[in-house]
């Protein structure tokens, strides 16, 4: 899933900066009633949580359609998945009870948990799950994320009420991880039979809340599912949710969102920016939830398909020429620890190689001299045969937050000392994709959310250099290495967990040592919430918060 950053701060960065400056300058309000989380007493039911999202309002509340993060955020309240991740990050069955796979890896059997009912009264059974998969695979649904996740399913059959048998085209050991993503969440088959417009307006699931109404550009109103039964008991409470409901609002401007939180108009805000988090953590009344997204880390890909990065030595030189750590520390106020892995730290199989990424301009210089980039032009940039060592870096203003854009600018400055010219182009999403599709880039940063290490195949398998009909391709470093392909293929199909880990480690080592990417930090996913809101912290497998256990202190 590719993430599109909200309108948030990209609209009015100056305003956001000003607002932040004013907050930091002490314009913040005096804290009102003293709050502390631990002595709030026993949980009380009641009250409506107001959630303010900085993301663009989804055009459809059914995450099967399209499939982006804003949809996952809201859908996590009313839809549930076959699998999920527990508090320790382990993949566990949820709506499914169990799953087995044949020795050849081509037949997967999923046992469906009995006794679960959708909020429209339809029972959950194998036919219901089959109807969901068919919905996802139907081109008319226009599923993008869920469609890809189920791409290896060849056919399916409900053997009985509780058993679904899936025949696969090739073995896929990432299937259960895919089942944990909200884009593959299970909805009432009866509700799915409605028109797409109707289902988009009010999907029907099994979750602790249900969609009551949706007033476009205003709010999605969710109410408690009174009959909710948790498929698996968790350490929290049993029965229905504490909250009467959730009002899901969309406040695109970051400064307004934070002001609304401070004013007590909303209880939770997402897409919290580093400067705001730094200011908020000084207040007693506001708390912070840091939930890095799974899948890939945020990283800069080095386009190896064309000069100058078709030369591995130049890629290596570039990585030593930029001072990332100092900038990340200062621009992100300590909210974004540095990553040295292609995978998010939320992924248990992430492999890190810190030693490869030292800031070492001397080494960069040696490498460039040896690679023939030894001359300098009048502006101080290195040249070879009269060509300047110049890198084009299209940056999507909707995917890179202001702090990240500043980071790129600071990298531009440090790289210049080593003789690299970086041309940063700030672009809207369509134009940015345009540059990628025409291979008009040397550097690019594109987030990718997915559960599990199979995201590595999406990003680095040579198959991913072949564009989709829309022109989209995910392998942006354009690494084409038969050895890597083989590692990724084997890693994706083995039934042996230890072997899977080892193969994915080797694949990560290969792309890191090949200097195809520069990892930056986890894909940032920060929430701020009012101190009176208790028991926040549970998230789905894709790090979207759930509010089943949450309650509002008086």
């Amino acid at each position, binding site marked *: 899933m*590719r993430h*599109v950053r909200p*309108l948030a701060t990209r*609209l*009015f960065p*100056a*305003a*956001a900066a*000003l*607002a932040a400056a*004013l*907050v930091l300058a002490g*314009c*913040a*309000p005096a804290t009102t009633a003293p709050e502390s989380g631990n002595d709030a007493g026993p949980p009380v039911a009641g009250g409506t949580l107001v959630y*303010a999202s900085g993301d*663009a*309002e989804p*055009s*459809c509340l059914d995450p099967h*359609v*399209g499939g*982006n993060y804003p949809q996952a955020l809201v859908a996590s309240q009313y839809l549930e998945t076959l699998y999920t991740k527990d508090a320790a990050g382990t993949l566990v069955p949820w709506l499914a009870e169990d799953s087995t796979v044949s020795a050849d890896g081509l037949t997967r059997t999923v046992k469906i948990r009995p006794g679960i009912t959708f909020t429209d009264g339809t029972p959950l059974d194998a036919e219901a799950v089959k109807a969901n998969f068919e919905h996802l695979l139907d*081109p*008319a649904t*226009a599923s*993008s*994320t869920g*469609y*890809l996740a189920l791409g290896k399913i060849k056919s399916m059959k409900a053997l009985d009420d509780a058993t679904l048998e899936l025949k696969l085209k090739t073995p896929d050991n990432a299937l259960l991880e895919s089942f944990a993503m909200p884009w593959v969440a299970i909805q009432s088959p009866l509700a799915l039979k409605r028109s797409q*417009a109707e289902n*988009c307006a009010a999907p029907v699931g099994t979750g602790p809340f249900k969609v009551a109404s949706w*007033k*476009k*550009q*205003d709010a999605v109103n969710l109410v408690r599912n009174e009959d909710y039964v948790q498929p698996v008991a968790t350490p929290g409470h049993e029965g229905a949710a504490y909250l009467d409901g959730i009002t899901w*609002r*969309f*406040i*695109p*401007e970051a*400064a*307004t969102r934070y*002001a*609304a939180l*401070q*004013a007590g*108009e*909303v209880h939770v805000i997402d897409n919290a920016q580093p400067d705001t988090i730094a200011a908020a953590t000084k207040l007693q009344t506001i708390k912070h939830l840091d939930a890095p997204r799974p899948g890939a880390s945020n990283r800069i890909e080095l386009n190896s398909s064309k000069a100058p990065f078709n030369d591995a030595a130049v890629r290596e030189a570039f990585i030593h020429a930029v001072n990332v750590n100092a900038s990340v520390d200062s621009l992100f106020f300590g909210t974004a620890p540095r990553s040295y892995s292609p995978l998010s730290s939320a992924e248990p199989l992430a492999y890190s190689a810190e030693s490869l990424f030292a800031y070492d301009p001397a080494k960069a210089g040696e490498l460039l001299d040896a690679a023939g980039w030894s001359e300098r032009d009048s502006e101080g940039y290195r040249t070879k045969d009269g060509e300047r060592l110049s890198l084009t870096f299209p940056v999507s203003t909707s995917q890179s937050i202001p702090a990240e854009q500043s980071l790129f600018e600071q990298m531009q400055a440090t790289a210049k000392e080593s003789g690299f010219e970086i041309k940063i182009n700030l672009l*809207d*999403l*369509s*134009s940015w*994709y*345009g540059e990628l599709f025409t291979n008009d880039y040397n550097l690019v940063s594109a987030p990718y959310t997915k559960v599990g290490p199979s995201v590595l195949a999406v990003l680095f398998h040579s198959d991913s250099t072949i564009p*989709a*009909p*829309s*022109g*989209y391709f995910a392998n942006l470093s354009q690494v084409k290495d038969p050895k890597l392909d083989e590692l990724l293929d084997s890693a994706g199909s083995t039934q042996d967990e230890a072997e899977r880990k080892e193969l994915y480690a080797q694949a990560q080592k290969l792309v890191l040592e090949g200097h195809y990417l520069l990892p930056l930090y986890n894909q940032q996913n920060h929430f701020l919430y009012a101190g009176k809101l208790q028991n926040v912290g549970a998230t789905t497998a894709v790090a979207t918060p759930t509010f089943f256990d949450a309650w509002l202190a008086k």
Partner: protein
Amino acid sequence: MHPRTLAGGRSARIAGTAARWVLGKIGGGLFVLWAVATAIFFGIRMIPGDPAEAIMGGPGSQASAEALAQARADYGLDEPLYVQYFGQLWRLATGDLGTSYSLKLPVAEVLGELVPPTLVLAVLALAVAWALALVVAVLSTRSGRLGTALASGLEIVSAAVPHFWLASVLIMLFATALGWLPPVSTNSPAGLVLPVATLALPLAGFLGQVMRDTLDAAHRSPFALSARARGESETGVLLRHSLRHAALPGIALSGWAFGSLLSGAVVVESIFARPGLGRSLLSAVTARDIPMVTGVALLSAAAYVVIMAFSDLAERLADPRMGGS
């Protein structure tokens, strides 16, 4: 000749002039709408990116070739361009604005919901701006040179202030620091204060600047002098003579002002998270939602045409030198 026939001929002539005026306005308006529809139809196709992709979830969608083909067929994007163009004009002429790519709802229905909140915002802002501009103009002309200079300075500053900056400052001050008003706008009266103020203040500065100049000139003009000589009080001169003069450029500018309010609404509705046309235009452009963009643009153009006609009419009524009377 009988006086009656004379009067009758005169009123017929006036009616004729009025009819010509009305027809001219309607014709001009239709031309503007056609031009806007045409410009958008062709302009939006110059932007890189396949409209079918926008339908299937925006740029970079991983929709399959079949899904894209299906979308093209559903929305008639597989027809030759001229067929699409005349088809589009015909549908627009018959009042069919099409279906939004991203919302999958009829554009007319979506606009129907979004027009009222934006209209409330724009009309209130225009009224407040007018009131502010008048009050400041009147007060300053009566308070001597220093007052004039002060008012003029204030007006220039407020006219120059960008909406997003003003909105942020107002939120910081009145929502965060003082806690008097909500930072997020709803249709409650309190929620309207900050967005209306954000739109009204710069406009008031602009209107005030123009009005005060005219008011000053009118106040010094021979007719004001003769009115004073007739023994009229300063207030009388102001109300009966000078204000009427000062209002003229204000009225003439109100059409323009309304247009600027609509563009200001894009910023203000986004910052204050207020439902409305401006915010939907922004998201429609981001999502390459051609029918929505076309719908909002045509609606804005139509509103502009109507407002201009009314401000023209109001100007004729306020200024006896113009029009057929």
